[in-house]
């Protein structure tokens, strides 16, 4: 009986698909497809040129292969690079006009859009597959001069900002997956916070991967002008399916003088079944540039899903006195693989960075922290603190730490520490003695282990994340 329950719980909670007719680009990766995407999105010529430039570059690039988790070769010609819910070609003006099926999907995910609009005070730019279908709370944001819209809309309406900042942090000439994204990205979010404005609410996007065999190529650009502040949430759940799906998003953050950007992610894409079949490949490039003095960028991530997670949200600390932070929880169970971490590039004087990474590995999973702290010769008084802790459950899984430390300035300090351990019998015994069953006990202990990171999440996310931590590890102790 109990086994049955556990079995049910282990099944992916958010595994369902919505049936909506799709507009698709023909299969394959070539100039025609890129032109098709650009045309269907009614993009100006400069954007198409930019994409083609990236594609040109892509032809000469090779997929990187230094990562720990290996995956079967991806046939890039066998993917659809564009698919959009049909009803989106005629964009609805309000939520009521939305396809009821779409709304239902969000309801199942626990983000009732209607509800949120009224109760939560969060503007939701929900990305369903590749095209933004609903943007809420626009009025309130417009009042403050904040631009929060889909990338395609930004290309039409704010070309000067897009031209100036798109590709300024992740250039077209970056690594394979970033360049692929530059060539074929479909949509994403665009945020601009004007000078001196503190964004009154937390901006949030829910990503959904829906149509089968569609790689998702999101592009997000957030610009915080002088003295502004924004907190951005990204949450992901994806339907269950068998084939592996590639997700190669690019996220660029730019913080000017005295600005602060806080970017939080909860990633819970389909991790594959318990034998390691299926699941999402999450190869995302996230990079933040602290361009101005006293700027700050903070990444927080909770990674529980995906068959393979391969990402390094990074900070380039260019402005003097700028601050970069990275808080991460990566949980891998069954056959999941994660190779994640961060890069802190100290260029400016008095720059500070802090890295807290918690990796939890269970079942047959492999969890790697890989990070770089690089202090440039001119980065006087730079400071870094890194802590990576790993927790192992069972002797079939692995936990690895691969930090790269480069210190080229004698006035700078770098500290790094890492530990690997397991949940002690005493802790488990103590909890069980007080009436918790073994899974509850593990959930509690792991939540304690992750506390430093969970605290960094905004309220709404923290609750969800705590639940996720528990759900992800169900069945791993026994």
């Amino acid at each position, binding site marked *: 009986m109990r086994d049955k329950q556990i079995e049910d719980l282990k099944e992916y909670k958010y595994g369902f698909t919505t049936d909506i007719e799709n507009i698709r680009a023909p299969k394959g990766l070539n100039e025609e497809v890129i032109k098709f995407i650009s045309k269907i999105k009614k993009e100006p010529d400069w954007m198409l040129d930019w994409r083609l430039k990236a594609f040109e570059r892509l032809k000469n690039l090779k997929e990187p292969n*230094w990562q720990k988790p290996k995956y079967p070769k991806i046939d890039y010609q066998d993917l659809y690079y564009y698919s959009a819910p049909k009803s989106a070609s005629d964009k609805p003006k309000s939520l009521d006009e939305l396809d009821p099926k779409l709304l239902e999907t969000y309801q199942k995910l626990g983000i009732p859009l209607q509800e949120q609009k009224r109760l939560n005070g969060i503007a939701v730019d929900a990305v369903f597959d590749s095209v933004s279908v609903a943007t809420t709370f626009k009025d309130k944001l417009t009042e403050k001069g904040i631009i929060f819209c889909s990338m395609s809309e930004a290309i039409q309406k704010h070309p000067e900002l897009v031209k100036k900042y798109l590709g300024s942090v992740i250039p077209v000439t970056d690594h394979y997956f970033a360049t692929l994204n530059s060539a074929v990205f479909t949509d994403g979010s665009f945020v601009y916070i004007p000078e001196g404005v503190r964004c009154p609410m937390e901006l949030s996007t829910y990503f959904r991967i829906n149509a089968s065999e569609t790689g998702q190529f999101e592009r997000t650009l957030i610009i915080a002008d002088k003295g502004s502040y924004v907190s951005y949430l990204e949450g992901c759940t994806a339907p269950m399916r068998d084939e592996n799906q590639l997700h190669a998003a690019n996220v660029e953050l730019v913080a000017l003088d005295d600005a602060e950007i806080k970017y939080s992610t909860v990633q819970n894409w389909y991790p594959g079944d318990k034998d390691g079949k299926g699941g999402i490949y999450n190869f995302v490039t996230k990079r933040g540039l602290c361009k101005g003095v006293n700027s700050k960028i903070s990444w927080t991530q909770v990674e529980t899903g995906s068959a393979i997670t391969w990402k390094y949200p990074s900070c380039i600390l260019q402005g003097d006195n700028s601050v970069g932070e990275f808080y991460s929880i990566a949980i891998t169970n069954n056959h999941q693989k994660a190779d994640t971490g961060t890069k802190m590039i100290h260029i400016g004087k008095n720059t500070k960075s802090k890295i807290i990474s918690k990796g939890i590995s269970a079942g047959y999973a492999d969890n790697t922290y890989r990070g770089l702290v690089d202090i440039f*010769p001119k980065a006087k008084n730079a400071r870094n603190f890194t802590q990576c802790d*790993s927790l*192992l*459950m*069972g*002797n*079939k*899984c*692995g*936990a*690895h*730490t*691969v*930090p*790269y*430390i*480069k*210190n*080229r*300035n*004698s*006035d*700078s*300090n*770098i*500290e*790094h*520490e*890492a*530990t*690997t*351990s*397991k949940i002690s019998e005493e802790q488990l015994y103590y909890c069980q003695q007080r009436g918790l069953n073994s899974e509850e006990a593990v959930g509690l202990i792991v939540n304690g282990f992750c506390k430093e990171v969970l605290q960094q999440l905004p309220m709404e996310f923290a609750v969800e994340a705590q639940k996720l931590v528990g759900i992800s590890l169900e069945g791993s102790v026994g």
Partner: protein
Amino acid sequence: MLKENLEFESLTYETLGNTKERKEHFYKFVESGFPSKKLEDWKFSDLKSIINKNIKELKFGFNTIENKSYNLKFTKHFEHSKIVILNGEFLSEDILDIDKNKIEIKNENLIFSESLNEPLNNLNKAFASKLIKLNVLEGKIVEKPLVIYHICDLDSDTNLINTRFELTLHKNSSLSTLNLFEDKSVSGFNNHNFNIVINKNSNLKNYIFDLNKNQNLRYSFTNIDIYENSNSENFIYSSGSKFSKYEINSNLKEKYSSAFINGIINLDKNNHHEIKTNINHLAENTKSYQLIKSVLNDKSTGVYQGKIFVNDQAQKTDGYQLSKALLLNENTEFNGKPELEIYADDVKCSHGSTSGNLDENSIFYLMSRGLNYDQAKKLLIDGFINDVIEKITNIKIQKYLKEAIN
């Protein structure tokens, strides 16, 4: 390019034998060339460019000892047995009476069976003339330290030395060795390969001191296999050479075995030194401990790459690794990669790494007690280093090192 300029045949030194195998290794080496930073293991020390920069023309050739005598000043600090290796070849031995029947020294032909994957090992195999073999016999405790003098006194004909050394401790034995480098030549490349086997219930203390200032480039690879209940203590003092990379690969193959690696990198000018360790925990209840400290002056670069690997058999592993670096000048650089790769859950593994300048508060404290700035600085640096030196368990050798660096 290298291939066109080099004809192995013209180098053949018939009496050595194994021409075919040597040739194979040499061509394999020529194919790959010296390792560059494109290889992950050489990321922080680009040997290819270092060789190009420091040695105008590397002349490949076999080790030679033309005049078989060498006037060497042996260290008088403590009583010891001696082995002298001149330009990569065994020259002489002098074992104290007390340890006479405990050690066996042989000068043998090379065995060619290994793979051809490591470029520097290939180079070593192609040109090392003999395998110097040292056995500590079963049940023998060698009382006095054995000092191995590595002398490099090359003329202009060749500037490459390849030494191959094998040390076996049979069951229930014990030995302390000290490798001392004595370099007279200008800009040569020394390529050492040590293979050490420590059998059951044995104990090896292996010290390497590179003390004297010289222009040589040095690469030393040591593989240590450690069996049940055995212990290997390693200490490296890396200071004198222009460039050096010490690579220690420790395999803890049976239960209750342990490995200790401690080291100091103390540099000035634009010297570049690296210590790379790789500890493989392959059985239950094994232990490893590493402490590496770097003191960097002028324009020097220090690198530490350490890896603790624990396979799924090695439950109850205890692994510890700490690296600290002092950057005393704005042009110095420290690169570190402390790595953990763990596949067993009941383990205690941790590592720490810090790098930075001296603590201003400590200097202020000392100056307020009457020391001047330089004295205060020296005191702090000495204390920083002493911490590691005191890990040397052979007191006489510990004392020798302390005196040598002051």
